[in-house]
């Protein structure tokens, strides 16, 4: 079965810990039958966001058929963040937007004007926006879900579909908010079955959260998917069909 991983990280380090290069990511994808992977920065969440966007794009260009970069910006910068987003979206390779409010140190409610402007750019360019969720006090599942209500034309993803402790609220919010989706990352088979049953298979996508130094995580997260007992159609929807439908059309 075809697999598109909607949530992974590509960088040369996380804090003090070096991360091997993208060839290790491709090797893991080959080993587990993953065709394409959406990748986000790590260090760009902390500093030098524009430079990290450029580095991510450069790394992905070595494997244009396999890696799909997501741009991030620092909304604490106000209008400059919107400009940086527009700059990056000039590159057709960037097909999604990622935020990690916990690591990036902002609550969206504190930056309503900038986040609204960013979501409007996302809506206009048909680019999905994925945010880390499941973690107080900046990234609770409820905080992320509210963003979808601010700009109903934007496609907003709970980046962990409720993570460890918010699975049930996540399932209900995805069901109730038309433009809210869930990328499960670490959800266990019992969690995934509930997400699909409640919110519908068409709004849930597979993500691994792995990086080139942690191939085991990709294997574990595929195991969680396979063991959830989904129907063949639902499995296909979460493993690639939804992601392919929702990503910014390539070449736009």
């Amino acid at each position: 079965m075809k697999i598109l991983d909607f949530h992974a990280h590509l960088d040369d380090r996380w804090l003090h810990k070096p991360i091997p290069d993208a060839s290790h990511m491709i090797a893991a994808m080959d080993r587990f039958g993953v065709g394409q992977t959406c990748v986000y920065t790590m260090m760009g969440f902390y500093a030098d966001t524009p430079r990290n966007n450029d580095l991510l794009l450069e790394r992905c260009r070595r494997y244009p058929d396999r890696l799909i970069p997501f741009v991030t910006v620092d909304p604490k910068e106000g209008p400059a963040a919107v400009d940086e987003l527009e700059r990056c979206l000039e590159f057709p390779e960037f097909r999604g937007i990622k935020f990690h409010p916990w690591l990036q140190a902002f609550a969206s409610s504190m930056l309503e004007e900038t986040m609204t402007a960013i979501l409007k750019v996302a809506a206009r360019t048909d680019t999905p926006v994925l945010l880390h969720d499941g973690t107080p006090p900046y990234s609770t599942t409820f905080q992320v879900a509210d963003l979808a209500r601010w700009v109903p034309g934007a496609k907003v993803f709970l980046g962990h579909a409720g993570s460890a402790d918010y699975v049930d609220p996540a399932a209900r919010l995805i069901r109730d908010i038309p433009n809210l989706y869930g990328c499960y990352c670490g959800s266990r088979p019992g969690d995934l079955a509930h997400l699909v049953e409640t919110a519908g298979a068409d709004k849930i996508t597979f993500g691994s959260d792995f990086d080139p130094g942690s191939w085991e995580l990709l294997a574990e997260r595929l195991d969680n998917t396979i063991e959830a007992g989904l129907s063949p159609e639902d499995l296909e929807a979460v493993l690639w069909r939804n992601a392919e439908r929702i990503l910014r059309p390539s070449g736009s």
Partner: protein
Amino acid sequence: MIDAHAMLGDETYLRLDAADLLRRMDAAGVDLAVARPMGAGMIVDHRAGNDLVLKAGPRIRGLASVNPWWGAKALDELARCRDLGAVGLFLDPARQGFFPTEPVATPVFERAAEYGWPVLMKTGAYIYADILALAEVARAFPRTTFIAGFGGYADMWFELPMAIRSAPNLLLDASMIWGAGIREIVDRHGPERVLFGSAEPRNRYKVVLKTIDRLELDEAARRAILHDNAARVFKIEGGRP
């Protein structure tokens, strides 16, 4: 193999009864499971929840759970559970509503110590389920074995190695934590600090066993995690390694 953490009952979207757990154990080659109640049977209706796990048959051993806010009634229920063969205490501070370090919980820990029971506590969400709060209690009761249920999954994972280091009587329940997290505890603190658990019906035997397989542990370490540690901690016989 001995599963150190299964769940019976009905909680939000999770549901499992003893017959279904036994089927899953058979399919995975698991000999014994240590189960605790979930849902109302764990949070408020202790008699029903504890009976569910304590009367589930010879291959399922029960952990008793009580809400410490019940005071003397909670201690009476623990006595009843001991007579029914409970092998330890289970607490879920986030759902039962207490800080592990606050005085209301102390008599319950004292009772577990008196019975020689290990204490499995769910850790994870920050406020009441902080894994470092469990480490505080573990240091206060050095002769009792404490098990970090779910290993702080998800976002307290980075506190796990230091918590384990800070209290020699604190062990990891590996049912929900990723392979790299398990490996770190095995490498730094030894395989005797890790228990195989399934978190059924939230997780699956197959997922956890494959995660442990990928660690490529030597035979002694594997045996400790899959069987010997649980047999020692819960004082149970049986269950081929």
